[in-house]
């Protein structure tokens, strides 16, 4: 952790505005300071459907404010209702994550934002050129880019586009949930008795906190690591030939396109990025903040409700207790022996992680 701290200190500067209750200061890259003009520009870019081959899909299609900046679907739909292989993660608090995408294949919001434009099952542009053409000639964009970056014409590149989108995303932070008011704010009435019991299970018998981290002054509910939790185990390559074929697929098409176009390749998880055996089928620990808003769950959206998720973990990474234990299951995943009441309390706790700006509709 110490080493990470040093890296963080050299790469980012912390912005002055106070973080919501339960969240740490926002890390901002030194080369992309946040400004109101950039945020405004990023907001517009994020919602612009012209950046897709059909003119019908924007970032916000799959990251919809009304749906907790996710899309409510098991796996996302891009142009012409084409589907990928993975569940859209919420953008809320994504700015805190050490890597982006379920397999962490991109390190920053900036680098992440340029990929869905080109993925054939997402926005399906042949290149970034159509985006640049619009932002260099559309009067509204010309004005916004001038204000945000002092740039016009060919000096506007995807760097500025991605920096603006990332700046907008850095404003999508939400803490101050009933849990935060209870745990950090000292309001003992902020959570229901069931949720308070659920917190105890979360911290102890359920061992959820081992990966979904809660710290003394803040909680991001992720360890920023990758774990094989048993989800979609049946999709995983069964032998060396299938594994080799999947790796071949990644190399031929590039990770982004390969993993979103083929469920078997997708099931490689972090392995597609690192080729490290520990990472086969391992996916990033997602935050649990606002989790009640972003069903369905897991990287493949295979579980419909929080009740199903809790049962899945209680069974040691299996939908049914009688399902086989995946051979490469992460060592941290094992049966929890929670009673039905404990499962219900845990769900109540998860529902107490919703920030007020998303509950007050």
């Amino acid at each position, binding site marked *: 952790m110490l080493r990470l701290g040093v890296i963080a200190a050299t790469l980012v500067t912390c912005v002055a505005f106070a973080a919501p209750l339960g969240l740490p200061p926002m890390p901002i890259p030194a080369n992309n300071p946040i400004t109101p003009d950039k945020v405004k520009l990023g907001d517009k870019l994020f919602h612009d459907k012209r950046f897709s081959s059909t003119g019908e899909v924007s970032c916000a299609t799959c990251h919809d404010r009304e749906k907790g900046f996710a899309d409510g679907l098991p796996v996302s739909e891009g142009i012409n209702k084409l589907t990928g292989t993975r569940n859209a993660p919420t953008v809320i608090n994504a700015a805190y994550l050490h890597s982006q995408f379920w397999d962490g294949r991109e390190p920053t919001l900036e680098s992440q934002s340029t990929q869905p434009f080109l993925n054939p099952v997402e926005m399906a542009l042949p290149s970034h050129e159509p985006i640049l053409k619009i932002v260099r000639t559309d009067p509204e964009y010309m004005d916004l880019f001038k204000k945000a970056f002092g740039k016009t014409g060919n000096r506007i590149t995807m760097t500025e586009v991605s920096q603006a989108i990332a700046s907008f995303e850095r404003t999508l932070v939400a803490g101050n949930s009933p849990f935060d008011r209870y745990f950090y704010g000292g309001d003992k009435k902020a959570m229901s008795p069931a949720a308070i019991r659920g917190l105890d299970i979360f911290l102890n018998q359920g061992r959820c906190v081992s990966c979904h981290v809660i710290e003394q002054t803040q909680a991001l509910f992720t360890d920023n690591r990758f774990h094989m939790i048993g989800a979609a185990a049946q999709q995983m390559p069964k032998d060396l030939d299938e*594994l*080799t074929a999947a790796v071949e697929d990644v190399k031929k098409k590039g990770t982004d396109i390969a993993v979103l176009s083929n469920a078997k390749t997708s099931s490689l998880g972090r392995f597609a990025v690192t*080729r490290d055996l*520990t990472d086969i089928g391992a996916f990033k620990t997602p935050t649990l903040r606002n989790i009640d808003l972003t069903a369905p769950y897991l990287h493949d959206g295979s579980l419909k409700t929080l009740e199903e998720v809790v049962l899945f973990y209680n069974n040691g990474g299996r939908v049914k207790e009688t399902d086989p*234990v995946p051979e490469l299951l992460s*060592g941290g995943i094992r049966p929890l022996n929670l009673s039905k009441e404990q499962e219900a309390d845990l769900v109540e706790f998860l529902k107490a992680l919703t920030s007020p700006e998303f509950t007050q509709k």
Partner: protein
Amino acid sequence: MKMDRRTFLKTTGAAVTASALPISLIKVAFGAKNPAKDFTFAYISDAHIQQIEGSKFVRNWDMGLIRTIQEANLLTPRPDFFFFGGDLAQLGKKEELDHGLEIMSRLRGKVYYVIGEHDYYLDLGKYWESKISPLWYSFDHKGIHFIVLNSILTYDKWTHKNWADPMDRMLAMARLDNPEGSPFLVGEKQREWLKKDLEKVDKSIPIVVCSHSPLQKIYKGWNFWTDDAESVQALLKPFKKVSVIYGHVHQIQYNQIGNISFQAVMATAWPWPYPKSYVQAPSHLPKLTVPMNRADPFFERDATGWQFIDLRTGNVDMHYQLPDNKNRSVVFNTKTGRPQDVKYQNVGSRIPPQNHY
């Protein structure tokens, strides 16, 4: 194809990417003159399969062995064979050995077995011999002479003490730091056999000896020890290249004594710490290891692992596969004449241990 280790790793790393092989096991040339000796094998050890009751076994140990086998089945090109380095069972019970064998049956390839003390002291190796393997034997493979020893015997007066129950003997030997235990031995009978076995072998042929306990003296208090180690080493002394591979210690250790390279293999079950940390008084432990960097106790596979091995130098080059940790390679350095860690040998390149609060 002659190249130094660094170039070798770099080039083969590139080859991995180019041929889409999922992991870094690459055929290694033993030498242009001996193309037949171009092979690898893999080594799995210390599974400690433990029965709780009936068909219930300790999940953690089961999962360690299962994961290892799943990974080893992905090795490409295929290793010529596997070794299991001992302690398949925790308390030598038939149920444990049978359950262990059932898991081992998922491994694709021939397995040579070495017996450990946890497999032996309940019935003195009877079930092992009838079901699994002889207790000591040798074979030749592509120009290498392999020897398997039963190094976990001990003095007869301890073994045949007036035990109320054989399980008492098993439990006494299973305890790591039992002051009532007894030091391991290869014993005279086996040393005689070894002497005869070696008479047939040309002195220039590389020898690989596989035993469960170290055939060197590391720490008597934990039985990281073989009492007649020097006598065994003396029999191996006339040979040009000798490698000893041992399990039992559940950690990375390597050492060179004269012509003999020693390398320990990891357990699939759990790690032991280096015993030095428990020593109260000054001891004269040989300087053996770069200590294991144990990243995080939450990850139950961390600091366990398995290994694949090549003999391109004629000595054992050990490639440790360490889940949730950084893989390591301990390779015979022909210049210094001893095994060395490819990446972490220099103090400056080591990962400092973490402090837990």
